[in-house]
């Protein structure tokens, strides 16, 4: 039964079914993972992709069906069992310990020891550096992980999975948080691993990645296999249609006129320990894209504008009124809302309901004397949740039970509930499926048309270019270029974002 030849099946899932409470999430899912092949799993948010992976990696037991490794049925009693059989996984959500260093995180559970159990610091550090090099991350192993950006943390996760020397590597949206360049690098690594004979299960919402990597694509829809095709029969249309159930075209056709309203948001000389003096303006109805590599300071700049962090100096005005950025809540008072970078750490209350999460911190659902009730919260949250097509059993479902993309939509709904005049979106489509992306773009267009000033941070170049009226490029924590009209091209952005234009041969330094 053993099949060690290249191309032979390493793992098979046969007829997997899984329900949570009475919500059927997976239904008769069958797929085969072969050595030296990349198998892409596609599907809408909430289709069951992550759940399938949790079954495959021993985190969740299946209700029915079999997992075969090398043709033999196995039973997992926990993630350790799957690991022991050579299955490594990078989950959709980061699982690093923020208070430990990069090296500690990489070596967690596999710490090298001297005889007698004393931790071998030297080898730990060396192993960590080796693991980091494997994913091309030039991070110092001694930095605390909590100080790193989400993208940098994602690289560490991948490095950690690879350091287990797996036979099957499972990647759940590994590039969602990465910049174009980092993502490209990662795809290169995946291709290399495939050439070395690893079986790879890869989840992504990004078409160009699927196109580049897939040897086989399986599309999940509502928990069952909607379509499955080898590379030869693969087409974007076929994937998207079986995924969404309708064709999606013209993703970025925003159809907005050129926005030439009054200046809504004006930032003068804003600076902090991390961000160098920066000035920018956004007009009413304008969408300004903020491009740059991870670590360029885009989120940091926006966090200053939104009042999340304290600025050292400078001034922010909205509609000519000076915003009290020194006071917590000053920016919110001026109706500046921001979708934060990390939905789990900075946005959501996982144990609380969708309705609660949408209404939290907004004026929704309040009665006199600060009273409220679940039904009120539901009623207030419903229009927004519907508009973003949040997929859940009910608005009372705890947000922690939602799929990643749907969690993102809930957070976006909260931003809209604040009825902002300035809306800052930090990677708004991270981890959302293509249909939902179209919805979110539609929404951005709507609110811009209503006169909201929008700043859009995105590492997906087609997205920044497609959605923005104007693009600002940041490099090393300051704005280095403003691109408009026909200057708005991927090439220009990449050149400014990597500092090439200034002809400086500095390494792309990733700063904490």
């Amino acid at each position, binding site marked *: 039964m053993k099949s060690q030849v290249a191309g032979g099946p390493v793992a098979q899932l046969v007829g997997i079914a899984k329900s949570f409470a009475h919500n059927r999430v997976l239904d008769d899912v069958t797929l085969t993972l072969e050595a030296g092949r990349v198998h892409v799993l596609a599907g809408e948010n909430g289709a069951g992709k992550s759940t399938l992976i949790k079954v495959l990696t021993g985190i969740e037991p299946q209700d029915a069906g079999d997992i075969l490794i090398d043709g033999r049925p196995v039973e997992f009693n926990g993630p350790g069992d799957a690991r022991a059989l050579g299955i490594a996984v990078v989950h959709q959500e980061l699982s690093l310990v923020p208070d430990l260093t990069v090296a500690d995180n990489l070596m967690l559970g596999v710490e090298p020891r001297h005889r007698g159990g004393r931790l071998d610091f030297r080898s730990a550090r060396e192993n960590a550096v080796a693991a980091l090099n494997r994913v091309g991350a030039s991070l110092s192993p001694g930095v605390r992980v909590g100080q790193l950006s989400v993208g940098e943390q994602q690289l560490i996760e991948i490095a950690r999975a690879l350091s287990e020397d797996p036979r099957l590597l499972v990647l759940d949206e590994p590039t969602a948080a990465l910049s174009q360049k980092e993502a490209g690098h990662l795809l290169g690594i995946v291709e290399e691993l495939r050439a070395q004979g690893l079986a790879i299960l890869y989840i992504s919402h990004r078409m160009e990645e699927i196109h580049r990597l897939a040897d086989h694509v399986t599309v999940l829809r509502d928990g069952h296999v909607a379509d499955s095709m080898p590379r030869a029969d693969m087409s974007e249309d076929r994937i998207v249609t079986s995924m969404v159930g309708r064709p999606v075209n013209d993703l970025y056709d925003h159809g907005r006129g050129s926005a030439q309203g009054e200046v809504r948001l004006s930032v003068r000389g804003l600076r902090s320990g991390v961000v160098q003096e920066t000035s920018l303006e956004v007009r009413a109805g304008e969408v300004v894209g903020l491009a740059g590599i991870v670590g360029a300071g885009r989120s940091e700049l926006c966090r200053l504008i939104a009042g999340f962090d304290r600025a050292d100096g400078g001034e922010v005005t909205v509609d000519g009124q000076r915003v009290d950025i020194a006071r917590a809540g000053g920016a919110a008072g001026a109706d500046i809302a921001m979708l934060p970078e990390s939905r789990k750490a900075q*946005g959501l209350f996982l144990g609380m309901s969708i309705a609660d999460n949408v209404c*939290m911190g907004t004026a929704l659902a309040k009665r006199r004397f600060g009273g409220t009730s679940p039904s009120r919260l539901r009623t207030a949250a419903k229009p927004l949740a519907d508009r973003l097509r949040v997929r859940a059993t009910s608005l009372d479902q705890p947000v922690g039970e939602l799929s990643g993309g749907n969690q993102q939509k809930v957070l976006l709904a909260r931003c809209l509930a604040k009825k902002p005049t300035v809306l800052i979106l930090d990677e708004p489509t991270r981890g959302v499926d293509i249909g939902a992306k179209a919805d979110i773009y539609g929404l951005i267009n709507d609110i811009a048309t209503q006169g909201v000033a929008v700043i859009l941070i995105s590492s997906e170049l087609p997205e920044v270019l497609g959605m923005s009226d104007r693009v600002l490029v940041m490099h090393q924590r300051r704005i280095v270029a403003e691109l408009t009209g026909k200057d708005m091209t991927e090439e220009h952005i990449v050149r400014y974002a990597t500092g090439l234009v200034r002809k400086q041969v500095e390494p792309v330094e990733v700063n904490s």
Partner: protein
Amino acid sequence: MNDIVAAEHERAVDSSRPTAPKRMRLHAGLSTLADRLGVAIALIVLVVLFALVAPYFLTVVNLLDVARQISVTAILGAGLTFVIMTAGIDLSVGSAVGVTAFAAVSLTLDGAPAPLALAVALLAGFAVGLINGVLVAKLGLAAFIVTLAALTYLRGVTYVGTGGTTMFSTHLSYSVLGQGSVLGIPVPIVVMAAVFAIGWYVLERTVFGRWVHAVGGNAEAARLAGIPVRRVLVTVYVISGLCAGIGGILSSAKLQSAVPDLGTGYELSAIAAVVLGGTSLMGGRGSLIGTLVGAAIIGVLVNGLTLLDVSSFYQQIIQGVVIVMAVGLDRLRTRNAVTEGA
């Protein structure tokens, strides 16, 4: 809290899917009921057990007695539930009972009218909570340390104030609060019911209550969502202090006196009640009804064992074991329910 959310979500699913097979719905209903009851099942088991072996246990007189016995612990637990929901802790409530009792009794002995004495006692509780809250929220000190210090210095204040001896009055003007009854129900029980009713409303039906859940669930997200996190934190400690004030009034009214070490160790029973009730020490998850059930379990246990003539030494051992068992069972029950999503 999670149980309630889950329960309501089941309901919504049911009503939105009228075609769901009836058997399945019934099943869902039953498992939801079991979920919701949680430790309540432990309470029912205890009650049935004691009713079988000690006939006197299940009489109205005895049950009212149990309720009166637990009233102060339960009220302290109510305040603590707010604090623990935010991932904080208040160890000072027992000492605060002592200090507020002393304030009320000494003022009364000095001839102050009852309303004034009671108001000052409540104010003292308020002040204790405010100090704790400000130190924790504004200065960012660890709640454990701040309230541990308060436990110590408040007890010291009580000793100094009482001179280390019992302050006793045969006709304490407000003793009706400890010994009277309304329609046959002892006043402390009425007060306890009122505290829990108001507390439940605040925690579950006000925006502030949602904020408490949010701050405990994810403090950074709460801050970024524009919630005044520090104010919420200060307020929960003030609530706890006020509850301790009420506890001090009720205890001194019952004893007609202020004993120097009144309230010693109450914080431990109160915390036990909160934890038994399913409130997570990590914050974000909890319920007042659970706390009431938790306090009842402890009360029933003490009462039942006493009726059975079990020595108080053994009672302590049994109590400790029951707490671990109840919390352990609860943990097993919810282990799969609260998984991280996606």
